[in-house]
């Protein structure tokens, strides 16, 4: 169980990394934490000509608090995000999602950007980003662009990132006063990818009714679903709206019917928990 032979490139800057991507395109794999790419390389599911190691690009490892969002660099490690006071304060939903991401040992190496770039339909970090209606920053050798997270994930392991683009950062909208967040998932074992997951950020009106809710559903469809509802009223309306048109995936551990049931349970749970 050994990888194919590949050229190893360790650029010093994001610009250099983008240049390498322009050179190799499809044939390159970008290595950040390697928590997903590593196994896929070892299993020879991925057979790149070159591996571009961005794990040491310090310029991509920062947390920056901007006016309306927090920017996390692509190679910010999950463990560092989890222990960050800024993240806990400004992006509490991410702070709630992170303990569900893999394990202590994998969070020590795994990155936020790597998880988003991989686009696993059940991954927690993409789900949090989609829920909050955040943004993905990309760049190629010539220019940068920003893609709303809700448009970034196209399907299972398929994103809007072009092969010559590097994911450089994630923009997380900052928490506002009076809003509550919650995250819940159902996995067979602790730390596994979820069979279904739900996340929300909501504000209630003075009567205690849900005034506005950002809701995310993960693991159910080929990509995480995010939606924003204004004045949905009660939980069941949220559930109905969130599951409208959803066609759940099937695999050995969950039928579509079961996933839909779980999704409803989890949506209720997060909405109530964020109460």
């Amino acid at each position, binding site marked *: *169980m*050994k*990888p*194919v*032979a590949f050229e190893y490139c360790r650029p010093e800057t994001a610009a250099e990394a983008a240049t390498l991507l322009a050179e190799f395109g*499809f044939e390159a*794999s970008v290595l950040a934490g390697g928590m997903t*790419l590593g*196994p*896929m390389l070892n*299993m*020879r*599911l*991925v*057979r*790149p000509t070159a591996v571009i190691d961005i794990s040491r690009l310090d310029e991509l490892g920062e947390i920056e608090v901007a006016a309306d969002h927090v920017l996390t660099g692509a190679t910010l490690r999950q463990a560092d995000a989890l222990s960050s006071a800024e993240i806990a304060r400004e992006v509490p939903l991410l702070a709630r999602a992170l303990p569900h991401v893999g394990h202590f040992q994998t969070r020590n190496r795994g990155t936020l950007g790597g998880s988003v770039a*991989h*686009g*696993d*339909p*059940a991954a927690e970090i993409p789900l949090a980003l989609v829920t909050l209606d955040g943004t993905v920053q990309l760049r190629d050798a010539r220019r940068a662009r920003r893609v709303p997270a809700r448009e970034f994930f*196209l*399907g*299972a*392991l*398929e994103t809007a990132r072009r092969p010559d683009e590097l994911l450089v950062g994630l923009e997380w909208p900052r928490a506002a006063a009076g809003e509550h967040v919650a995250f819940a998932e*159902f996995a*067979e*074992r*602790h*730390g*596994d*990818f979820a*069979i279904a997951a739900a996340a929300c950020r909501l504000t209630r009106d003075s009567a205690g009714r849900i005034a506005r809710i950002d809701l995310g559903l993960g693991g159910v*469809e*080929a990509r995480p679903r995010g939606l924003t509802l204004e004045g949905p009223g009660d939980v069941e309306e949220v559930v109905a709206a969130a599951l409208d048109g959803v066609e759940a*995936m*099937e*695999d*050995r*551990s*969950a*039928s579509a*019917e*079961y996933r839909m*049931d*779980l999704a409803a*349970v989890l949506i209720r749970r997060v909405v109530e928990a964020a109460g």
Partner: protein
Amino acid sequence: MTVVEDARDEAPPWVGRPVPRKEDAALLTGRARFIDDLAPLPGLAHAAILRSPYPHAEIRAIDAARALALPGVLGVVTGAQIAEMTETVPSVVRTAPPYRPIAVDKARYVGEPVAVVVAEDRYLAEDALDLIEVDYAPLAAVTDVMAALDPAAPVLHEALDGNLAQRRDFTYGDPDAAFARADRTFRLDYTFPRSSATPMETFGLVAHFEEAPARYTVWSNFQGPFVLHPLMARALRVPGNRLRLITPPASGGSFGIKQAVFAYIVLLGAVSRKLGQPVKWIEDRLEHLIGSSAAGARAGTVEAAFTEEGRLLGLRYDNVANMGAWMRAPEPASVYRMHATAGGGYDVRDIAISNRLVLTNTVPIGLNRGYGGPQFYFALERIMEIAARGLGLDPGELRRRNFVAPDAFPYECAGGSKLDAGDYHAVLDEAKRLIDYDALCARREAARAEGRRFGIGFAVGVEPSGSNMAYVSLAQPAEERARSDQKSGAAASVIITIDPSGRATVQLCSTPNGQGHATVAAQIVADALGLEPDDVDVVTDIDTQRSPWSIASGNYSNRFAAIVTGAIQLCGERAADKVRRLAADALEAAPEDIELAGGRVRIAGVPDKGLPLARVASRAHWDASTLPDDVTPGFHETVMLSPDVLGPPSDDDRIASSVTYGFVADIVGVEIDAATGRLSVESYVSVHDVGPRMNPAIVEGQVWGGFAHGLGAAVMEELAYDEAGNFLAGSFADYLCPTATEMPELIVGHVETPSPQNPLGAKGMGDGSSMLTPAAIANAVADALDRDDVAPPFRPMTLWALANGREVRPPAPAVRDDGVPSGPDVLSGAGEVVLPRPPDAVWRMLIDAEALARLVPGCERLEETAPGRYRGEVSIGVAGIRGRYVAEIEHTSREAPTRLVLRGQARGALGHGGGGGEVRLEPVGEGETRLSYRYGARVGGKVASVGQRMLGAVTETLIGQFFRAFAAELADEAGEATSFWRRLFGRSDPS
């Protein structure tokens, strides 16, 4: 000094204390040496094994030219070449085709070896695997044991008529009469899944062949039984003394499964000979899961006959055992392990057993923790629970009424097992006490009153230990047994050496894999010689050229405590005797008066007259010519013993199949969340009678470990195949093992009744919890859900379905009439798009090879080979998981321009698949078309075995990509048409 020694004299024996393990210091500091840490020879080359991606396929040709041309590759050896150099390995089932460790003309399960590459390193060897081209002709496959018995099922071995390798029926007492006179009878049809103990260290070996005379030396983590040694030697065509097996000092777990390393000893031994090159092979985890061995799946029926008062009168078992693709020795031992104890711990004389051994397109089964026990107890303990409910009795009470009575030991079972000692009532009572059974029942009532699903399950049973080498031969009819040499017993061997400096070393042939044999051996010998365990060294690695091994050597069936400790004890006494005789001579006393304590020998009652043991014992080396007459020179005491109780089988198929029988009683309370299917084990108690515990901490560890294996098998582990034979559990993300967060609390209790079979009273242990936990949890699940059709593993979806009255596995036919597969494990989907062109335009594009070549993502070539038949090459990928596939597609029905049905198949390095689809076109709106499609496909090979979770979603994504491209192309066409219209008519809209 004297004071300290006196203090030591007062100390209790070492046996019975939870002393720290001798093994640990090396393991904790990274100094222990495992098979992959050894480089016993210079010039080792590394092997990698090409394995069949198909469950069943003819191998028409193997082309290794490109692999051989790769620099660093030293050779490629195919199955046909191995077949020329080796003999097959027979089992006791003479009707089953004998086993080969590599496929020759035909592969019969996913993961079966097909060729071996040897290269300068493992990385290069794997590169070469990618370059070998095998021409497979896939065949239909069958994995389900009942389906394999269907006369229409695909047949694995042409030499057999069907897939039934053997059927044997046994009758003990008069079961028909028992059922006829019963007040009540109960019956359960059940299935039990395939699982695997997955030790953390995989298989590994270094094989080395030398000539003149032909001789093999193999270093490996094979763990016995060494009854396989003569079979290996025969397969390699050398006499037994020319197959030297050596084990490394440490082994990273086995739980029985490393028995199957023997297959690779033959395979890589032959490869080493063919290439004239020492070869190292370390199995990787994917190989281990897909192709090593397994605990067998079973289906069957169990029936029990009772009086109204709950007296068990008779049992009937109809066992249908899934042996995998081959009857691999020592199978069918797993089916016969519990045979002679088929009443469990119950006093029941009238038993009928039917065993059907069935071959399927799955990995051959073999030793695995519990070995036949989990399957057996699932049947017996489920039917006891069902009977208790039917009779309106408490399940514990029903069991108590039928236990072998405490004064009935030794008790000879209907099948011939001799239960040595026990007090089963006391064990069950202790379990009820520890779990506070009344409170647990009250809790169940309270939970049920709230509508929650809470259940309680029992499972009790004997734990056979120390197997009779002859029990497997029950698979042969008595007449057939009579034709071969008689077998019996189970020899254990120990050598105690005292070296010239007076230090003791114990040599064992029990090949431990983490069970602390060295520690326990040191405790026993320390007691015998009056030393401390730290003073005694223990060697546990075997070298068949030097160790005192026999066919029963090895680590299986809990034989260490049941048999080996007896040999150690006896050997320790002999060594002590010799020391006493030497001391008697030196101290001028009678040997009976000599005491060994505190590292010294002395005359009883005269504590200050003594000598260091080292000095006395070493005299046997230094002063050999003046030794007393009854003392031999040197100091190597050897004991070989075989328990007398293990006699040969009788003509009426009765046998004392094990030496000792521990007893285990488990009670569990579970709650199931109907909304999610989550099972939570609320409390679990397991009480064991293993006789006096020689090292209680080690016993505790074995109970916990067995429990973890049993729990895993009950709730999450399954070596799953789909109905077509594709393997679905190829990684640790697909084959789920419990981690620390999944383990419930376990209350462990003990009752000790000493065994007369062993000088220390010890009974074997280690398997017990793994045997009973699945049954106990199944009983609790059945109780919680109030239904009996429950089959492990109890994964959340299964429980959710059971709790909500849904289908657990939709029993849809694998292929519907229209050629679009559906059913379990089929990737299926449906969708529709509205396209901006009328149906006939859409239709044209749909059957146009050139257009499709542009639109199919990654299509590199597509040609129409005949009308409606296409052949192409596509490079499909998501997330860099790119593979090149050769695809063949056929239109099976064309109804222009409304309906197209197609089927196809594709294969490539990452996997293969086949399926079908239907496309319907329907005009909508103004010159537009609604295209609706549905598809179903089965995928096999690597992507299926390690990518189960994602396959459906990825397929959906790829198909989505295709239709987006399709729609875009049509839009372009429409766009061109628009401008054409505009140019022609000056109108902006073609309508």
